């Protein structure tokens, strides 16, 4: 089966010489929920721009279900729906009209465009806003329109560039549920985010991108296993002299035993057994696991969190 999206040795040098992508590779299988995770300026939007035809390619190639994004752009673009990072609305038209127009640009008939628009408005709770202009809507509603616009022609592949940046928790969860649902129904989703939780919650596979390079690609679980720390924290009722936990090493922190283990759920019973056999009484066992956030920090030396806060203040300023 051809991958939904494939990027080979992709390079982008912007006018002025900045190398935003330094030869990246991505293979996004059909039906997958794929995350591109990285701090601001990593190259996420540039990658998406090249796939969708907004950014000219410098080197390498991008393809959509086997169609080259440049030489076979018609077939390629038909398959994709894009929700750009920055809100962008045609100011002369109402929400309903602009969804109909968008469907029309993709070649849907008048009737089909109207029907899809109605479905999208209902789906995103915007039916009552059909005749409103985008500028009259709240930030969260604008974001919903932005995503509805990406889906109005019912594309097989949906690309969402930071869809939940600056969106309140309730809407974020609503969007997550919706995206999970359409992914289950067969749509391939590529999501960029700098919210770790979002990637952990939604994505089967995550590529971490930093400074125009993809550093690592794997499932969130594997990434935390490979690059993070996990284990058990055990509180004993009574101390055991010369405790041995074969084959694991442990250390005592504040009287609690810390054992680093790759698969703590699986090994928990064995560890507890060994402690009991040596006469230890167990009061409490807790699994700890470092998050994707820690992995990210370890791999890139950058925190994603600071960026979040910066972004949200910016967003807050814009809304004043």
């Amino acid at each position, binding site marked *: 089966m051809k991958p939904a999206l494939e990027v080979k040795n992709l390079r982008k040098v912007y006018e002025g010489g900045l190398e935003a992508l330094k030869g990246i590779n991505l293979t996004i299988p059909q039906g997958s929920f794929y995350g591109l995770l990285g701090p601001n300026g990593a190259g996420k939007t540039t990658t998406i721009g090249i796939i969708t035809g907004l950014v000219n390619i410098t080197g390498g190639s991008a393809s959509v279900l086997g169609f080259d994004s440049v030489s076979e752009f*018609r077939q390629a673009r038909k398959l994709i729906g894009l929700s*750009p990072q920055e809100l*962008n*609305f*045609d100011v002369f038209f109402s929400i309903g009209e602009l969804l109909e127009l968008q469907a*029309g640009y*993709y070649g849907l008939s008048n009737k089909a465009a109207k029907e899809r628009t109605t479905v999208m408005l209902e789906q995103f709770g915007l039916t009552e806003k059909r005749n409103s202009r985008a500028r009259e809507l709240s930030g969260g509603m604008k974001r919903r329109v932005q995503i509805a616009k990406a889906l109005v022609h019912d594309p097989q592949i949906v690309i969402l560039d930071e869809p939940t940046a600056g969106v309140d928790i309730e809407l974020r969860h609503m969007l997550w549920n919706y995206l999970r649902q359409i992914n289950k129904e067969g749509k391939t989703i590529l999501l960029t985010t700098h919210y770790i939780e979002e990637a952990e919650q939604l994505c089967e596979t995550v590529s971490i991108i930093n400074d125009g390079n993809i550093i690592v690609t794997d499932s969130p679980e594997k990434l935390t296993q490979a690059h993070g720390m996990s284990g058990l924290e055990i509180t004993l009722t009574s101390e055991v002299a010369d405790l041995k936990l074969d084959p694991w090493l442990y250390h005592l922190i504040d009287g609690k035993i810390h054992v680093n283990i790759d698969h703590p759920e699986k090994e928990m019973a064995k560890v507890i057994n060994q402690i009991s056999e040596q006469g230890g009484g167990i009061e409490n066992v807790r699994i700890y696991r470092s998050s994707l956030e820690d992995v990210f920090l370890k791999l890139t030396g950058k925190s994603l969190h600071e960026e979040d806060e910066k972004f949200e203040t910016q967003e807050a300023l814009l809304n004043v």
Partner: protein
Amino acid sequence: MFSRGFWVIVKREVKRFMFLYKQTLLPSVISSGLYIIVFGAAMGSRIGEIKGVEYIHFIIPGLVMMSVINPAYQNSSSSIMQAKFLRFIEDILITPLSGLEISLSYIIGGTVRGVVNGALVLLLGYFLTGLQIDNWFLTFVYLFAVAWAFAGAGVIVGIYAKSWDSIMVITNFFFMPLIFLGGVFYSIEMLPDFWRNFSMINPLYWMINGLRYATLGIAETSHEFSLGISILFAIFFSSLASFMFSKGYRIKT
């Protein structure tokens, strides 16, 4: 030949200027009406006839051209500039439409506005001065070709423009002087040699001369040459616009 999406952009462009009719349709009707009254009625009696037609009729083809050229140009240039500035041009760039289709749809949108404006001024001429059109078909051909040419020029400027100012600069410093020097209000036969020769290299002079032939049946110079110039400009500007759009100059990064 063109996809459905192409016609949807054309429809969008037409809806946009209809929605903004106070800025897009009324001004040229009002200013043309004023020119007809002030120049035609007030000065016409002193100037009398030129080449056998009343002065008030003589100036109408030039006024029509003014109402074709500026609106056609402004429609495509401002529409593209806004779409670029507010980034909703991305909504179109990500669709399966080619650069050629996108630029042509903007050109057609501007052409429709130019032709509608020109037709409104002709209608006004009929009501205010009883103007009768000599050759309907040729009149339409001129409105269409000239609107097409300047809508094409508008796409080019829209691609480059970063603000309203740069769009208006072209109108105020190029088109308006060339239109006025193109013999809207006088016959170039009334001019001294230098200015007469200067008019000959002014393409807008030829366009006005051609439309005058189509509407009034009089021509100061070759009307065949006028038709050639109009069509040539239409082809040239729209080809250049489409080429630039396809390459993504200033539109793609």
